[in-house]
């Protein structure tokens, strides 16, 4: 069998928006920009909003970062033919749920946010359940290879405690770098009002986020 080497990665650079979010770069070109809706209005489940920043080793927010989001729906099903089939029959996501999106930081503040639905637990390797999580891929100027991490939800104590990926993190204190923090009160839960979570990503330093070689 022919064996090739993977094309080496290079930084996305400061003008990544031109290609992946041209509206943000300042011009209209495509009929539809991809990655705008992770979970459209018809998608089922608890609406959530994630807010955060990506911070460099000096604590300064990156103002030119782009994140891609990949997640399962509220039932733990990915919009992909290889999603686990726990009941042994093909499972598909509902209309309006894509599970993928693109998020860019504000050019002045570095703040970013996205709205979606909270994912359900996903079947992992060897029949173990993975706690609800959102997969993130981070590219920017100065990042030579896109960084992979996961966002988990702080209130999922039991599921997080049994999560096979979180359990791989030897320094247990570092597991908390992957927990999104709930903002506001629990009694505001309604389908229309999204729950708000805070998730800051530290590229370097004492609070360095756990990044994966996936």
């Amino acid at each position, binding site marked *: 069998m022919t064996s090739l080497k993977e094309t080496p*990665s*290079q*930084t996305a650079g400061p003008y990544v928006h031109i290609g992946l979010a041209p509206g943000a*770069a300042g011009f209209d070109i*495509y009929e539809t920009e991809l990655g705008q809706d992770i979970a459209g209005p018809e998608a089922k489940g608890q609406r959530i909003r994630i807010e955060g920043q990506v911070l460099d080793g000096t604590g300064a927010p990156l103002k030119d970062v782009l994140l891609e989001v990949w997640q399962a729906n509220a039932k733990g099903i990915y919009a992909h033919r290889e999603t686990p089939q726990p009941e042994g029959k093909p499972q598909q996501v509902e209309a309006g749920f894509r599970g993928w999106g693109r998020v860019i930081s504000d050019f002045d503040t570095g703040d970013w946010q996205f709205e979606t639905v909270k994912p359900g637990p996903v*079947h992992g390797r060897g029949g173990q359940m993975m706690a609800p999580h959102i997969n993130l891929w981070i590219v920017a100027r100065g990042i030579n*290879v*896109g960084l992979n991490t996961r966002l988990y939800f702080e209130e999922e104590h039991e599921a997080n405690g049994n999560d096979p990926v979180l359990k791989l993190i030897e320094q247990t204190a570092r597991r908390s770098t992957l927990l999104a923090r709930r903002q506001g009160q629990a009694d505001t839960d309604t389908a229309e009002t999204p729950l708000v979570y805070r998730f800051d990503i530290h590229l370097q330093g004492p609070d360095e986020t756990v990044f994966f*070689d996936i």
Partner: protein
Amino acid sequence: MTPPDYFSRDRRWHPPAFTPDYKTSVSRSPRLPLLSLENTASEITGPTFAPTDIAEGDNDLLTNFARDGGSPIGERILLHGRVLDENARPVPNTLVEIWQANASGRYRHKKDGYLGALDPNFGGCGRVLTDDNGAYAFRTVKPGAYPWRNGINDWRPAHIHVSVFGSAFAQRLITQLYFEGDPLIARCPIVSTIPDPVAVQQLIARLDMNETRPLDMIAYRFDIVLRGRRSTMFENRMEGN
């Protein structure tokens, strides 16, 4: 049955995170090691795209931003190639997106203040899905070199940024393509983040006279290789073999 894993990324082939000659990488590189994660459903799945997600002419940068009757200034090129995996199998129906500066080395981006002029007929981005053989093609102009604030006199070689999805989130890749024979390639701190000179060669698009259209445009060929996938030894299935 557990689906087959993707081959591990060869992190000695890719650039490391910390590459001090590319100055921005110093404060934007993790200092702790990456945690290796065996593939789960979260990594072997990923977004897929349909022809309806994009429009017919999105891969023609000569026309996709041009005003009526207008055309961008610059060297007209056909950029084409195939997306393959490490087993040399085509990756069909995958999204390839590109972006680039114009012939003056100026980007159409509100944060680019370079002296080079904007071209009113050039936007600088394109996208296309690969066909059943993994092939893709764009029409564009060759981008110019441009200066950047790294060293006091650093210039990027002419390059086009390339983003590819593959079939799994684990295959997601962004890279840059350079042009055969460009003397700036060897001088560029971003190119030099890649430790192995053989790996750098993989980013250089080759002049392709066979696809060059006489009296119209010159052609460059750039093949992209995504992570391959292990075979399933005990199952008779197509994927991964």
